[in-house]
């Protein structure tokens, strides 16, 4: 009897911890024929909002942000944002319940497929902060022009940076070839003389180095798997 009371007391804090989804969770999604191992970190930020990130070794993913994390009476839900998303089916979603044994069990949906998963809490959350855009230097915050060739056709590029008070810079990228494409830019980062922009949605990136005269960004543009040299000249200097 005494032994049972001790056991019961020992379980109380464990059950208490299990009532929150906060923590690092590790487990497997039982995709038929190819189980998918993952690690999920879930925590609350300073404003009490749920945030998280995910590690999927089989997909080469470390610290991708979770989106739409919610906790409702023992039910936990989140999605993977752009990771594993498709236009037709939307994001990969997870819906689970915290189990009496402390596990998080539920279903993953991706591309219309559904599979069960079970995650076990392995420790405190280690949510990876998302990469954020930085401001760019005043002599970068201009419009830049350049040309490159892709699959035998010339393309004209206009890249325009804009700083915003108290936040990171934004950029617009216009590519004029056989068609005119406005490329959505997710990330703008300047580190010293190096400037990088990324469009995850379109798989396009430019990385260049500001020359000493601050008149050119000399670098490369990546369009999917193809990399091409690209020199951008500042509008006022061109």
């Amino acid at each position: 009897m005494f032994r049972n009371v001790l056991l019961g007391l020992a379980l109380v804090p464990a059950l208490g911890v299990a009532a929150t989804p906060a923590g690092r969770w590790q487990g497997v999604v039982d995709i038929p024929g190819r189980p998918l191992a993952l690690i999920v970190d879930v925590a609350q930020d300073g404003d009490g909002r749920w945030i998280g990130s995910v590690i999927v070794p089989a997909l080469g993913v470390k610290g991708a942000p979770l989106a739409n994390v919610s906790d409702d009476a023992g039910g936990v839900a989140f999605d993977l944002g752009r990771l594993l998303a498709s236009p037709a089916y939307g994001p990969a979603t997870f819906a689970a319940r915290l189990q009496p044994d402390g596990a998080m069990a539920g279903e993953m949906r991706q591309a219309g497929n559904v599979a069960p998963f079970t995650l076990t809490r392995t420790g405190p959350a280690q949510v990876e902060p998302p990469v954020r855009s930085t401001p760019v230097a005043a002599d970068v915050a201009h419009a830049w022009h350049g040309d490159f060739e892709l699959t035998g056709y010339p393309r004209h590029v206009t890249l325009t940076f804009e700083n915003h008070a108290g936040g990171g810079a934004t950029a617009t990228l216009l590519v004029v070839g056989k068609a005119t494409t406005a490329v959505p830019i997710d990330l703008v980062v300047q580190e010293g003389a190096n400037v990088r922009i990324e469009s995850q949605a379109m798989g396009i990136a430019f990385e260049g180095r500001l020359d000493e005269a601050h008149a050119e960004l000399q670098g490369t543009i990546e369009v999917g798997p193809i990399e091409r040299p690209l020199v951008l000249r500042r509008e006022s200097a061109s």
Partner: protein
Amino acid sequence: MSAAERLRTWRALAAILAVMLCGTVQAQSVFRADAAHAGVYAGSAPRQFHRVKWTFPTGGRVVSSPVYRDGTIYVGSDDGYVYAIGASDGRQRWKHRTGGPVASTPAIANDTLYVASYDGKLYALDAKTGATRWTFATGGERRFEAKGLHGFLPRNQTIADPFDVYLSSPVVAERRVFFGSGDGNVYALDAASGRAEWQFATGDVVHASPAYANGVVYVGSFDGDFYALDAATGRERWRFHGGQDPAIHNQVGFQSSPAIVDGIIYTGCRDSNLYALDAATGAEQWRYNASGSWINTTPAIVDGKVVFGTSDSRLFVVADAGTGKPLVQQQAKAYIFASPTVAGDVVLVGVLNGTLEARDLATGDVLWTFATDASRRNAGWALTSGGEFNGALLFSSLWREAPIVAAERQFDVGSIFSSPLVVDGVVYFGSNDGNLYAIE
């Protein structure tokens, strides 16, 4: 019978005799039904799916297309064997081991079966017993390869193309066997002895299958050129330049085999075009452009129409043979590499998501579909619930072997690369799940 009628009769008989003496393979016993690769079979394919008549399991992927002769189905498998299977009962009659995957479609002429293997040899076998009559060693097989192929990384790494799945299928005419090889050559061998009569060097792998018409052999190469060669001497009559892609070598090369009807050659190309060329001169008549999507299927030609499929854009196309203008364009659920087969008013199309589609020739509408066992299993969610490839999950990286593995996982859903055969209303085709299916 008038003198003119007698003359016509004698000419007809002489033509039939000439064909018999030349040993040109008969319809159904060669890739795409005949030496010209029209892809049109006698009778009609079923307009409704009734049942699986039988399934013949092999030990590897069946990329090879089945052929038929005297109640027997012949097919190669990537398990390294050539199989002879009873058409009525699906039982094995014989098998013959080669030294590598048999991703080539057999051709049968005068009771001899000819087929290429990845061991770099062409095999001539007794069609009744499978016994070896002779073998011929080429300079060796290899896949199309290039640095930074398809944008795979690292860019400076030479990468073998996972989508170069076929070997060249032989064609027999004028007592010669013609076929291409990974060593870049087109070969002509004496059909009886296997002695090399000539070889013609192209600039890269030849895995397309030569077609034959009027003393000329036609075939394209992964070097981006299409060749017309004199069947007797191997001398080049003309060549046609397809597109080039020095950046990532994606939009270059003839994986499609040609079809020849009424003096016009129809061939797809990885440069995204389907070309109609004058067989005598190589002059381009028209082209259909698929906007960046490979055309790897060998077109079927029937009643003034060209029937083909595209890869990434997943289109099933019926075009006017005279102009190339599309008459029908419908989207399949996944890439189409398998050459469409026409039997009656039905077109059969193998799709890389592991389903066989039967479509109405006139409208392109789907009459029925059949999903292979592997497609239904959908291992690793290679497919979406709607049957499309699940690219978001499959292709997570372009580095090193990752895209190769992803392509292999795509093919694991029972992808159909094999061109269907129709005999007496029964449809035979191979699948990457290792099975040869007979359905009716």
